[in-house]
């Protein structure tokens, strides 16, 4: 689509100074309101005239939503904390390094300076048909342009497609799932605390929504329990260019060992399915086993069971097998023996 370089269409800009005021404004304006954190996902929609909210609720003045607090059980990260702040935060680097690494691989320095964690976990899919304003299933229509014999679907899903085959694009989310993070959502009814993986919705449940946020909901914080503090972590992102590009795939794992045996483990992969994918079956299969290349290979093979390639994305199957293997053994041991 042609890039429009004119000023965006008009909207009302509301600039609350507290989370309570922000939530109230969202409640009052319902469907007409759009939350703006750093705006890095929002501006494309607005500039391209594809989403036309009447009201923008700008959170940039809500200081209480900013910053990382060390709590009695881990850390709490305000939704408005920038990705740069998280990547540089001493406690996160020391004990939750998988998240520091994940966010430091997002987009570009300037985007990380402005993009927030709340915005990163709440961002929409990147499928260009949808982003370009085509009236596909996800946009409320009744066709998927990516899932046709000529559809461009190199970046799309190998799991979990149901009419829509767009993938979840976030780099931070798999790290948060691996850390067993909880999302704190404020609404008129009060506060809800949701497991990271349950924040997301697949197309079989609601094809036009990517997460559980409803009009009036404000994501205020993300809590990371101390469960995996200082554990062994792995994060890897595969992308075309080393800057700006969304993941073709990423993997995150958090592992606690006794000796070389895996005691506790959580693994998540993103950009393979419309919902960020936690690999529970793999976790169950490797628990109690040694963290060796053999276990990694078994994990990799198990991870791709049931994967369905599209016309242009079959490469994602061996890629996922290898990334999952590495998430258990690290890069050095990850050459294949069988």
């Amino acid at each position, binding site marked *: 689509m042609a890039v429009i*370089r004119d*000023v965006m269409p*008009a909207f009302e800009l509301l600039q609350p100074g507290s989370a309570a005021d922000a939530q109230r404004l969202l409640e009052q304006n319902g469907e007409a309101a759009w939350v703006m954190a750093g705006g890095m996902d929002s501006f494309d929609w607005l500039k391209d005239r594809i989403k036309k909210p009447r009201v*923008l609720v*700008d959170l940039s003045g809500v200081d209480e939503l900013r910053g990382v607090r060390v709590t009695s059980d881990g850390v709490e990260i305000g939704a408005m904390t920038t990705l740069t702040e998280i990547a540089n935060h001493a406690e996160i680097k020391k004990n939750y390094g998988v998240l520091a690494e994940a966010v430091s691989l997002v987009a*570009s*320095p*300037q985007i990380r300076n*402005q993009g927030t964690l709340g915005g990163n976990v709440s961002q929409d899919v990147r499928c260009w048909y949808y982003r370009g304003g085509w009236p596909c299933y996800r946009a409320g229509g009744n066709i998927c342009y990516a899932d046709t014999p000529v559809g461009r679907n190199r970046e799309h899903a190998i799991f979990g497609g149901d009419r829509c085959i767009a993938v979840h694009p976030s780099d931070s989310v798999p790290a948060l799932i691996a850390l067993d993070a909880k999302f704190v959502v404020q609404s008129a009814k009060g506060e809800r605390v949701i497991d990271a993986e349950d924040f997301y919705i697949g197309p079989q449940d609601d094809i036009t929504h990517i997460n559980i946020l409803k009009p009036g909901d404000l994501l205020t914080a993300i809590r990371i329990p101390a469960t995996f503090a200082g554990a062994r972590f792995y994060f890897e992102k595969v992308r075309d260019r080393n800057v700006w590009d969304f993941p073709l795939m990423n993997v995150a794992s958090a592992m606690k060992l006794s000796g070389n045996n895996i005691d506790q483990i959580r693994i998540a992969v993103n950009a393979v399915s419309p919902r960020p994918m936690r690999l529970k079956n793999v976790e169950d299969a490797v628990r109690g086993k040694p963290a060796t290349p053999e276990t990694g290979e078994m994990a990799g093979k198990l991870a791709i069971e049931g994967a369905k390639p599209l016309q242009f994305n079959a490469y994602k199957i061996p890629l996922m097998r290898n990334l999952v293997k590495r998430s258990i053994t690290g890069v050095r041991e990850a050459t294949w023996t069988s």
Partner: protein
Amino acid sequence: MPEMDDPRQSEGAQRKVTRRQFILGVIAGGAVVSAASYRLLAPGHGRLSSANWSERLISINVNGKARRVEAMKQETLAWTLRYKLGLTGTKLGCDRAECGACTVLLDDVPHYSCSVLTHTVRNKKVTTIEGLAAADGKLHPVQQAVVDQQGFQCAFCMSGFIMATVGYLKQNPNPTRAELAHGISGNLCRCQDYSKILDSMMRGAEYTRNGFPAERRA
């Protein structure tokens, strides 16, 4: 209602003047720079209530000066800087956070000004390429390094690279070449002149730490 509510009308009307006339007209506008050109160009959209007016007339700190400017709610900082304040050293390449040409500092941190709403920087310090040189005209060390090293080809990307570098050096004044390359990796050069750009920026880092070479100070 604000007079800009219907973009179709204002876009249509705007086509009646050339872009250059429009820009020159706006720049000539003077101290309180306003969106008057829009109003003149969009008949029927000229009735502003005074409440709307006061809401949109804001003050932003640009290059150490308080600048009063009338900015639409949906206006980006790049737009305000270039077309309201006449600070055209900030370039617009992609307008989509994908090139870095529009990089400015907000409280000393590099941001893409194409992707910041002007109304959100009222409490911030904005620094553009025009604000780097000293009051007596002496160039900023990174600018001087570009002159000495002849770092760019067409230089459309230059002010963005310089701003990104100046911002990065505040965090890490003594970077390796690889660190600096990573630090300013949010900027693209269409002429693909990266090696020479990095030469200049490394020299800029050195000048920033140690001052200009003696012969240049004379």
